């Protein structure tokens, strides 16, 4: 029996983390809703399982998403994750092939060189040792990058590395110790027996020339085992819990489970799947423009995990969603932040128990009994019947040129429409939602729903992406909700409006709530290509910037918002276009005061380029009557 007492720390750690991970997954599964449980069961026997295996390989091991956006950082993650995986895989095969017997306990593979010091002298054996050395060198190259990154984050192309707590630091140190101690232990053993390949062999040979290698090796094997054991034991308390959790998360996501609007098992899993890689910190405009570096999603999730005071972090965010699309783990950061904003409204919260090793569901402080209606004063409206309802929204009312342009386009379309909030309707409810006050928002939603359903229309056209998003997601309306750019695109496709080509160079700024928030990227660009010369910027689609005017953030003041707007406008107008086009009244209003380039909503550009024949036809009765009057 090959056994030595030094393997015990490793064994304890390994079996602890295996049992812990399985227990945790069972608890998470138990807390899922009935539908989600069914989804997961269906996923296990269906395509989702294969998909998940593929995704686990591509994302958890290769880290394709990080590699694409930042090669050096990606290489660091790739070498550590994929390298470690290869080391375990080939180590197990090595122990099985060359060990005393087949089917060994895990420690045999990990400490193979200790138990088989004579291994690797000839032919195939030495080739295999070469492979193992190569993998170890691969990991060590990544580790070197990681150590450098911790102290000089710019080297891997990151502006900031995440800040750590004490437990994190101990876990990090033990992680860093694992591979160097393995290198030294293997080298010294190899040196004593004159085995080993290019890395361990040559270092061992050199050590053996002036050190008692055989005696020195043993303490380093101990160190290797202790580092592994410590790392595994501390894993559940630190961000490294993401390693087992991410596998479960990928499987859950592929089975079709989404975050929804309540804290629950899935949001818990996501919270633990965050690796604090810091990609969200780098893309955040609060960081780049205002140097606010404590509220990014990595810190939000860390605060949730540690049960820290969270209100300021949750609310100090533009809700632009740039981090959400960049997250390499695919955590749904925006819904999670919204759950935190609702805070006291929430039905469930989670708290740490057993020194942080487990988390427990606790009922939230939602108080439903004591709620008086806030918006009783809004009178019941009797809108006229129409096919198309135009809902301008607060922000469009504040930018009359957009409102007038939309009315001009609607007139030209010849459709039977009604301007439902012409005399100032009520707010769509999204600002209240963003502030975490869902119940009040629901009241407004009911008021608007009632009014809109009375018109019997088939289309609801919104003038503002903020309204668009909430109409799409939180209203239950029996009609199709379209943003005005989608509506204009439909009119163009149907040939309902004719336009002249404007010989102007235009760049397009995609509003957060329309683009990342609702996935409408194509229509605005197609319209702009149709009527003007659309030029490209480096901030398109998912990578588009936030104008800074966001209603999502009440914690920064107007001067800070102006700074974000100025920075964003500068980046967008680098090539000096004639027009900075956008599809949101709030973006327009924010950018106007931040740049000298003309800022226009797409509806304004379209209205300007409208073929006047169209408009004349529409207005001719009015013009005629006016002429008659003059006569």
């Amino acid at each position: 029996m090959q056994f030595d007492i030094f393997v015990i720390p490793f064994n304890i750690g390994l079996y602890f983390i295996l049992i812990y991970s399985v227990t945790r997954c069972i608890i998470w599964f138990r807390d899922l809703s009935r539908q989600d449980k069914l989804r997961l069961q269906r996923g296990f026997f269906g395509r989702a399982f294969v998909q998940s295996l593929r995704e686990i390989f591509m994302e958890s091991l290769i880290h394709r998403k990080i590699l694409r956006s930042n090669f050096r950082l990606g290489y660091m993650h790739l070498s550590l994750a994929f390298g470690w995986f290869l080391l375990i895989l080939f180590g197990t095969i090595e122990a099985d092939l060359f060990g005393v017997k087949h089917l060994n306990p895990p420690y045999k593979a990990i400490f193979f060189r200790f138990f088989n010091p004579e291994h690797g002298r000839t032919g195939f054996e030495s080739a295999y040792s070469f492979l193992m050395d190569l993998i170890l060198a691969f990991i060590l190259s990544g580790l070197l990058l990681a150590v450098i990154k911790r102290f000089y984050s710019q080297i891997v192309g990151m502006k900031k590395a995440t800040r750590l707590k004490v437990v994190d630091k101990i876990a990090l140190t033990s992680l860093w110790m694992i591979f160097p101690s393995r290198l030294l232990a293997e080298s010294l053993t190899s040196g004593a027996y004159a085995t080993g390949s290019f890395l361990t062999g040559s270092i061992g040979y050199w050590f053996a020339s002036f050190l008692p290698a055989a005696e020195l090796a043993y303490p380093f094997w101990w160190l290797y085992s202790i580092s592994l054991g410590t790392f595994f034991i501390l894993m559940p308390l630190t961000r490294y819990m993401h390693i087992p959790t991410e596998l479960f998360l990928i499987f859950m996501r592929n089975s079709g489970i989404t975050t929804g609007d309540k804290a629950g098992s899935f949001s818990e899993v996501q919270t633990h799947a965050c690796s604090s890689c810091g990609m969200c910190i780098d893309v955040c405009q609060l960081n780049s423009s205002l140097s606010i570096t404590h509220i990014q999603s990595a810190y939000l999730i860390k605060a949730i995990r540690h049960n820290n005071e969270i209100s300021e972090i949750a609310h100090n965010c533009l809700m632009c969603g740039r981090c959400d699309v960049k997250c390499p783990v695919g955590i749904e950061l925006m819904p999670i932040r919204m759950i935190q904003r609702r805070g006291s409204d929430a039905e469930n919260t989670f708290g740490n128990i057993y020194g942080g090793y487990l988390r427990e569901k606790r009922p939230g402080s939602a108080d439903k009994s004591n709620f008086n209606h806030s918006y009783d004063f809004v009178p019941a409206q009797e809108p006229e019947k129409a096919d198309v309802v135009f809902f301008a929204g607060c922000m469009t009312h504040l930018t009359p040129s957009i409102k007038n342009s939309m009315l001009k386009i609607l007139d030209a379309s010849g459709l039977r429409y009604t301007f439902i909030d012409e005399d100032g309707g009520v707010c769509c409810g999204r600002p209240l939602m963003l502030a975490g006050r869902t119940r009040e928002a629901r009241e407004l939603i009911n008021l608007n729903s009632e009014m809109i359903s009375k018109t019997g229309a088939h289309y609801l056209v919104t003038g503002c992406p903020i309204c668009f998003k909430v109409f799409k997601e939180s209203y239950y309306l029996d009609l199709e909700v379209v943003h005005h750019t989608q509506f204009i695109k439909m009119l163009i496709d149907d040939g309902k409006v004719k336009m002249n080509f404007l010989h102007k160079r235009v760049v397009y700024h995609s509003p957060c709530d329309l683009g990342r928030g609702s996935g409408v990227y194509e229509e605005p660009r197609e319209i702009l290509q149709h009527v003007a010369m659309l030029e490209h910027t480096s901030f398109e689609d998912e990578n588009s910037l936030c104008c800074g005017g966001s209603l999502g953030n009440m914690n920064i003041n107007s001067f800070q918002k102006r700074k974000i707007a100025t920075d964003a406008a500068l980046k967008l107008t680098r090539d000096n276009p004639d027009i900075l086009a956008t599809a949101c009244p709030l973006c327009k209003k924010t950018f106007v005061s931040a740049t000298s380039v003309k800022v226009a909503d797409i509806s304004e550009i379209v209205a300007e380029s409208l073929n006047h024949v169209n408009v004349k036809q529409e207005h001719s009765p009015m013009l005629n009557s006016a002429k008659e009057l003059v006569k």
Partner: protein
Amino acid sequence: MMDKFGFSISKGRQINYESNDRSIAEYISEKEPTFRLCIECGGCSATCTTGNFTSFSLREINILLKRGENEQVKNNIRKCMLCGKCSLVCPRGVNTRNVVTLAIQAFHNSAGHAV
């Protein structure tokens, strides 16, 4: 009787800063310093969505809070829809949405303490 003819005797309108409760205003201006920048121009009230239906006026609320006459504010502040037009028209850059949110918070907190 006099009311019917549109006459009434005005009640005393003295502002007694010593007995008024300025704690709400202090709470707000501590957390949102731009609250102090307000020049009471009334731009916010002119554009207000709620003001379109009621006599709700953010300008009035600002003044009342600063005086420490909180009762009227407390009854009305929840009428705000938080749409944010006021913060966009504000010539002084007052973060009005946060002022309203903080006021609601402050009333909530003080009610909690009283009970």
